[in-house]
């Protein structure tokens, strides 16, 4: 508590509370609206925030169950949302595991070993991480096209291609893990090596168990970033049943086929788990996001 308080403080506190609450109402309006819309019947209905005739129509469709209306008409689910969600999760989990494995071992070398070109490589990684892959899409498309002629599961329109392509964005994670390794005292590992452990054993049995928290964070971060990846997946994936959620979701809102209500249910269904994971891990995630940029 500060010692010197102007008299107007009480009013300013009140104004701050009101201001922030008002702001939060505006900020949350779109999110509340979309939840409300997912319970309205029809795709064009408008109404208040609390739907007058709540209907589970869109939720049935989002879950892939044909919906029978009151007048007996049966609506088929427009898109395989659950399949898209499954594709997204599959790609994201495999990517995150690969990214975690590869960036942990690299970060170990960067944090503990001396070798030629270390500083140069680390700095170049920081620079290249800023180049968005969307700009080299033509080249990436050509690359996977050529590989796909000989290695089928890595070609265009395969999940393998999307997974492998996500490995290009490892620099950020390497920096995050390296920062954490740097903060762990290396005397334990040195003692183990004096006792006859190999470098690999020191890494595997001493450093890794100490670093579980950062590994969890990097895994979640890599997972979320792959789930949200749009440009690469939108070019590499073609078939409807191969799409990820990020690419497929926009198909609800085409001018000619505007399925606002169905979209709302699908959005809540797929967005909620990701949002909750993010909120739960936000402290670590934010630390990880900023570490790559500022920490040495």
């Amino acid at each position, binding site marked *: 508590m500060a010692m010197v308080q102007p008299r107007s403080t009480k009013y300013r506190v009140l104004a*701050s509370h009101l201001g922030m609450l008002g702001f939060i109402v505006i900020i949350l309006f779109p999110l509340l609206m979309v939840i409300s819309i997912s319970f309205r019947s029809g795709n064009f209905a408008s109404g208040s925030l609390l739907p007058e005739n709540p209907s589970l129509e869109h939720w049935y469709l989002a879950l892939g169950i044909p919906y029978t209306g009151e007048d007996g008409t049966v609506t088929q689910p427009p898109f395989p949302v659950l399949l898209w969600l499954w594709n997204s999760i599959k790609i994201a989990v495999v990517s995150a595991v690969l990214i975690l494995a590869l960036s942990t071992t690299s970060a170990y070398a960067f944090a503990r070993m001396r070798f030629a070109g270390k500083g140069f490589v680390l*700095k170049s990684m920081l620079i*290249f991480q800023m180049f968005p892959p969307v700009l080299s899409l033509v080249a*990436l498309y*050509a690359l996977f096209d050529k590989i796909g002629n000989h290695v089928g599961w890595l070609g265009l329109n395969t999940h393998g291609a999307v997974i492998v392509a996500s490995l290009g964005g490892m620099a950020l994670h390497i920096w995050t893990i390296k920062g954490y390794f740097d903060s762990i005292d290396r005397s334990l590992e040195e003692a183990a090596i004096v006792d006859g452990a190999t*470098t690999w054993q020191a890494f595997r049995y001493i450093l890794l168990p100490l670093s579980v928290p950062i590994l969890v964070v990097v895994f979640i971060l890599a997972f979320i970033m792959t789930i949200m990846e749009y*440009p690469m997946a939108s070019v590499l994936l073609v078939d409807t049943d191969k799409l990820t959620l990020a690419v497929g979701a926009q198909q609800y809102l085409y001018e000619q086929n505007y399925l606002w209500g169905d979209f709302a249910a699908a959005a809540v269904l797929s967005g909620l788990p990701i949002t909750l994971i993010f909120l739960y891990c*936000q402290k670590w995630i934010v630390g990880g996001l900023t570490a790559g*940029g*500022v920490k040495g």
Partner: protein
Amino acid sequence: MMRIILKWGVLAALVGMALYLILALYAQQEFVFAMLFLVLTASAVFVFVHKKLYAHRYIFPAIAGMGLFVIFPLMYTVGIGFTNYSASNLLSFEQVQDNLMDRTYQSDSIRYDYGLYQTDAGYVVYLEGEHQDLVTPPLELDGSEASVPALPASKRPAGESLAMRDIIQLRSNLGSLNLLTEDGRELSMASLRSFAAIHDQYTLHDNGSITNNQTDVTYFPDHDTGFYRSADGDSLSPGWTVNIGWDNYLKVVSDPTIRGPFFEIFVWTLSFAVATVVFTLALGLLLANLLQWDQIRGKGFYRTMLILPYAVPAFISILVFKGLFNQNFGEINLVLEGLFGMRPDWFSDPALARTMILIVNTWLGYPYMMLLCMGLLQAIPRDLYEASAMDGAGPVNNLFNVTLPLIIKPLMPLLIASFAFNFNNFVLIALLTGGAPDIIGASTPAGTTDLLVSYTYRIAFQDSGQNFGLAAAIATAIFLVVGALSLINLKLSKVKV
């Protein structure tokens, strides 16, 4: 011992697979890609065999990943920027030549009327020639037969020829037939009533020129434009990819239908990125200051609520806004109509569309700035504010004389990174407006809300012309901007390694 055998076995298997890929690419004349994988495999073997490079084994997979999916595509894109690679010039010269040599046309002079007869053994095609009639062996006509002989005949098969109605039903299967005569001619269906001889469309000469056998026009390969061209200037499609030097760049500067949109988009991209950074920083800093204030209770609640826009996946919230801003069904227009009686046209008016994009992006981006500022504010010693309060400073004075000077330095690299990110904020534009409304008079797809990066994407992937070369040239220009920004950033943040 087992481990050593296993290790070498795995290594040998991987190298074998890589060599197969390299050879296959080489055989298809994909020299750049063959070279890429050769370099990658060779360096992998070198690193994993060389004892002294032990540390490099750990970093090799990550470096290889970056090399393959970031650095190589970047260089390849720069390379494409100097070519005319596009939908009309997609193939290599050899592929174009093969393609043209494979073309055929049907003769006008050598034609046969035919009749189709159904016999016990199957369908029989009977061709009536001027000098010699031909007949095929019995056929199934189920689409599986391609080349069948047509032998000289003198007598029609027994029975009536099938009616036109039945021939129409069998049309596609008849069309796929290739009849081979004894003197080496090929015949194919020319119309419902006739078969005609097939001739090669082009003849290749020793000097590389080709002649159209139908029109007798000769075309010469023009390696400056990547097309076969005749003396009159007619060109044959498809063309092949050739190096055209700086032409793509010159086009951006000199062609008014590209220059105009390009500069409009460039200015908008800059203003969008600057405005986003300013808005999100202002809002984020203000909220961070409020949350940092000792007098405020319930910080955990506020923090979680304020962070929500950041936690929702962007591809979902952008689409939510797309629906909410919809001109006819959108909830935002319903509210505005109820309150003020207006229905702004968010997607077809350029100024409104840009306003909407800034609103949405501020919504998406302020929590990140808020979190950054909260971290930085915590590092400011509290007694500085005590001292300024003694001097009678209010909150505004505090902000500009104490807080900002202290946090601007650590904040700068993050602001530049945010600028660079938004400069290339493809997902926002692609999902929200798709660049609409369009710029009038542009020869390439260009919209008033397009950022440079979505503009290049549309040139490459949405336009029917698919002008990869031009898109790559513009991408190269963006690479330079991004590269400069990240170098500045590296200097400012004083990275130690």
